[in-house]
């Protein structure tokens, strides 16, 4: 896993995953949760996936049967989740003045 430039948008994305650790989320869902426009979010998701923070998988469906194209779902890798929790805790500590474990 490689480190990436931690921007406000990166924090928004990782906090969604930290708050939903068991969920796999697709791009539009993440866009709705974070408020980041999809066009700006997708490059970020691809960057996070390349850096090993996120794991992306296409839906295991047959588009012809379901009648719609496959979506790519994202979840955090183990290392990504550990790093994300670190970041979220740091951010919370910065904002509130004390550490609150996630």
């Amino acid at each position, binding site marked *: 896993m490689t480190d990436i430039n931690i921007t406000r948008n990166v924090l928004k994305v990782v906090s969604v995953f930290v708050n939903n650790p068991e969920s796999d989320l697709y*791009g539009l869902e993440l866009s709705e949760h974070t408020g980041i426009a*999809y*066009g*700006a979010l997708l*490059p970020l998701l*691809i960057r996070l996936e390349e850096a090993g923070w996120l794991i992306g998988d296409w839906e295991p469906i047959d588009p012809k049967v379901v009648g719609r194209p496959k979506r790519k779902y994202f979840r955090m890798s183990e290392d990504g989740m550990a790093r994300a929790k670190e970041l979220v805790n740091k951010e919370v500590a910065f904002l509130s003045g004390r550490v609150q474990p996630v």
Partner: protein
Amino acid sequence: MKAFLAWLLGAVFSGLVWDEVSHQFAKRGWTRSLCRWFIAVGSRTMPEDHRESYIEQAMPEIENLLAERRHLAALRVGFSFVTTLPVAFALSDCVYCLTAVVQVPFYIALYFSENSTVPADFVMRAGVGYFFLFLGYGVLWRVVGIYRTGLMSRFSTNGTRFGLVPLIPVMAMSHVEVFLAHGHSTMAALFALHMLAFGFVLFVLSTPILSRKLFHKA
């Protein structure tokens, strides 16, 4: 009461019309094609090895929205690819570049004007110098920036925002004064209008907050 009812009817009617128009648009595949074009343009500011991924991952989301008859949402998602900051800045740089080229005819017209009292060499120096300055800086760096990595766009965006946008009023006034001083009031007015319009477009496109408010719905 009548006004309210008229407004309500209008809103319902325009909603119905809009719904049907957007449905027809989508039925003909225009929404899909337009979104694909938006994504292709937007992906131009991204690293080359990412471009296929953008279209590959973005189009299913568009298709799913179209399948749910959420045409406006699909258009908004597609449009969000051309209103990301790198693209907005790259486009604003293109506008700047084109406008710099458009300014050259003003100088040529001034030079060849029958009643002109402006020394010929001044006009030539100003016009030609201006032209090559912006051609060199503008075309090579900014237009090419659209087809290179985001780094190029970031370089040109900062140059535009912090270097050139503040200079526009200064440049505009100095040129308007030259035209006025030599009796070319019509040309001065046209030039001022042109710079105002250009400045407005550049300002909107290169100011992140304004771009977001105008192009990204909450």
